[in-house]
């Protein structure tokens, strides 16, 4: 087929020419005609099942999301018949939806709610049987409320096609249809890796994070507790969206100020521990390159990726870096080094991590990530939950004056910041490994080959000592599965692999502000947020982890050297093989 072949169609009296293969929905958009959609997620879920996007084509009503434009088509999008059909469709969906909008955590961020509003649905004609099911709170990361589910299938398509995790699917048929894990298992017992991409895909409140907001308020109210918070790099480039700021706005200083106002006793930066991770993981990489054992070294910062490996590639657990993820390292240091310095019993310290991620909630409860019966991190809140707390506290976020993080875990380099975007961990590691191997300072800072939001990037990098590192940088687990299968077949050979489970990396994590799909069709959220990350990196005076003065200090005063005995005890971990089903 000739790609440039054009077809002429008429939409609402406007004659337009579009490329052959364009859908009527896309063609309408080109001329500024808005057609509502619900189940449709471009290139991910296109089942044309909800029928909210019907248009009149001759005598018929057809779903425009999958209808290809054909020469001579005469389409009407605004007739009585179309408006009534769309209304009926949405009313029928609403008739089996738990409508508790005012107390729903997706209130004002719900596509069904805004669709019903736009279609001027003010009363419901249909009252019938309702789906009844208990809310599934089994997972520490993700909650499922089947009574709110509208069976659009966007979560399933994301879980299966984008992530290839395949944790959920349609079960049963007809009115009995629900979405859930096979054998009707609770989510916690499934192969779900807690990435939360399903939450971002869900148009309603049927999937959401397992909230811990009230736990945090309780801890803050407790006078015996020192409540310490740390924030991941990706949070600062997205939090502002919850307060109406444009996507890609950096709000680091305001975020710190807001955390103090909420009542946290210390506000630390997880980026510090990202620098520490580079010291530990960089050293690990150099050692593995020397011995040739357990290569490729696979990054372990992403708990979704780690659980994915545990379920699907248990024979490659040894390849995962033994480094804990940065916030877990920081938690361990807060409850040891910092507790000692402050002369506080670590049992009275509560560590809270603000993360762009739902999988971190699961991770923080892993028993491997504890020391002397204390979890390294006590609670994880998503970016969305932090925004909620700021609103609940009545803080005027947008007008806050910038404040600085507390020390000793407040100073971070640009290398720590870029951990939030795909390629960032690899680049940060390369900046340090390069100089450690050379034994001197080098000008090399930017490794552009590993930047960008493409799903799989490869780079071959020659170290100053002549050693060559074949690197793969991957985001999205569907891409990771492809690469892992090639490695297992022996068709690819790498020394270092960075994987972030979420498409685009942590900036687009399952705990980040929800951007409605129409905005996503116009703005690439991944690009806007990652640009903010790299801007932040550039703005910092120090951009290499090993140059962080507080990192030097903590090795001098406490840890000794990277991969020392104490480092291993506090900062490294191990993994468990899990079932494939």
């Amino acid at each position, binding site marked *: 087929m000739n790609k440039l072949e054009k077809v002429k169609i008429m939409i609402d009296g406007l004659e337009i020419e579009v490329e052959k293969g364009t859908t009527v929905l896309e063609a309408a958009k080109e001329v500024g005609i808005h057609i509502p959609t619900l189940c449709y997620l471009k290139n991910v879920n296109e089942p044309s099942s909800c029928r909210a996007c019907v248009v009149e084509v001759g005598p018929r009503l057809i779903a425009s999301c999958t209808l290809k434009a054909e020469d001579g088509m005469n389409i009407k999008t605004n007739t009585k018949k179309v408006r009534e059909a769309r209304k009926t469709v949405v009313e029928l969906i609403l008739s089996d939806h738990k409508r508790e909008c005012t107390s729903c955590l997706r209130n004002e961020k719900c596509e069904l709610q805004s669709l019903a509003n736009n279609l001027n649905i003010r009363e419901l004609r249909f009252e019938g049987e309702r789906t009844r099911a208990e809310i599934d709170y089994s997972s520490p990361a993700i909650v499922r409320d089947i009574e709110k589910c509208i069976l659009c299938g966007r979560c399933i398509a994301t*879980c299966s096609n984008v992530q290839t995790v395949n944790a959920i699917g349609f079960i*049963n048929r007809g009115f009995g249809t629900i979405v859930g894990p096979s*054998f009707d298992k609770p989510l916690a017992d499934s192969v779900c890796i807690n990435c939360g991409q399903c939450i971002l895909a869900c148009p309603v409140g049927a999937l959401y994070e397992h909230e811990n907001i009230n736990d945090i308020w309780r801890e803050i109210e407790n006078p015996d507790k020192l409540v310490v918070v740390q924030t991941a790099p990706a949070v600062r480039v997205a939090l502002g969206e919850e307060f109406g700021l444009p996507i890609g706005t950096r709000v680091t200083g305001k975020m710190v100020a807001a955390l103090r106002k909420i009542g946290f006793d210390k506000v630390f930066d997880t980026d510090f521990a990202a620098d520490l991770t580079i010291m530990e993981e960089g050293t690990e990489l150099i050692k593995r390159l020397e011995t040739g054992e357990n290569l490729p070294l696979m990054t372990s910062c992403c708990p979704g990726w780690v659980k994915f490996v545990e379920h699907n590639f248990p024979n490659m657990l040894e390849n995962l870096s033994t480094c804990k993820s940065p916030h877990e390292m920081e938690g361990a240091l807060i409850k040891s080094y910092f507790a000692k310095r402050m002369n506080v019993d670590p049992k009275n310290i509560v560590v809270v991590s603000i993360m762009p991620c739902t999988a971190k909630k699961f991770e923080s409860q892993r028993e491997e990530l504890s020391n002397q019966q204390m979890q390294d991190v006590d609670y994880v809140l998503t970016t969305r939950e932090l925004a909620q707390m700021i609103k609940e506290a009545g803080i005027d976020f947008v007008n806050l004056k910038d404040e600085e993080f507390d020390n000793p875990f407040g100073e971070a380099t640009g290398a720590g910041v870029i951990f939030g975007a795909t390629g960032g961990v690899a680049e940060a590691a390369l900046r340090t490994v390069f100089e450690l191997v050379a034994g001197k300072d080098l000008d090399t800072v930017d490794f552009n080959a590993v930047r960008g939001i493409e799903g799989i990037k490869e780079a071959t990098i020659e170290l100053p000592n002549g050693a060559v590192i074949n690197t793969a940088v991957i985001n999205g687990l569907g891409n990771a599965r492809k690469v892992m299968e090639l490695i297992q077949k022996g068709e690819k050979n790498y020394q270092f692999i960075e994987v972030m489970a979420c498409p685009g990396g942590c900036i687009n994590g399952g705990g980040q502000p929800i951007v409605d799909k129409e905005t996503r069709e116009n703005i690439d959220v991944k690009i806007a947020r990652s640009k903010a990350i790299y801007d932040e990196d550039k703005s910092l005076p120090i951009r290499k982890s090993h140059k962080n003065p507080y990192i030097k200090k903590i090795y001098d005063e406490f840890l000794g050297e990277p991969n020392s005995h104490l480092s291993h005890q506090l900062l490294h971990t191990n993994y468990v093989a899990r079932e494939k*089903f």
Partner: protein
Amino acid sequence: MEQTQTMCCNCGNQQDERNDKLNELIQKYRDVKGGLIPVLHGVQEIYGYLNEDALKVVSEELAVPMSEIYGVATFYSFFSLEPKGEHVIRVCLGTACYVKGAQQVLDKLSEKLNVEVNKTTEDQKFTLEASRCLGACGLAPVIMIDDDVYGKLTPEMVDEILEKYNK
């Protein structure tokens, strides 16, 4: 896979035989597009139901995710995820049978066998199912026991029919 181990009795052999049949089945459909449904029929034939361990093998070998298999298995009413009795009784509750008194036939069977609808008797002899239209409306009300069809039934005829299978 279910563990196969040497046992003093012969029940282990039956297991081996079933596993062989399963492997044979999978080989036949491994590269066939749309092979999942025939394979599931085969699994049900071999094990009497869709056994979870067998489905894991199917998922692995056909490279079809379990979420999809489970979706198919729960979509079609002829697939069962629970073990079935030696004989399966399907009582048609399609429109024609229903107006001709199929419900009374079903109630009588349930009372006689002391089993709830869609469950299996304690002695694993019978599974009683309410079915969608069996396509024999002219004979309404109709039941099927395994592959045998019985039509124009009244509740009184149930005892005699069950006799044949109670030997």
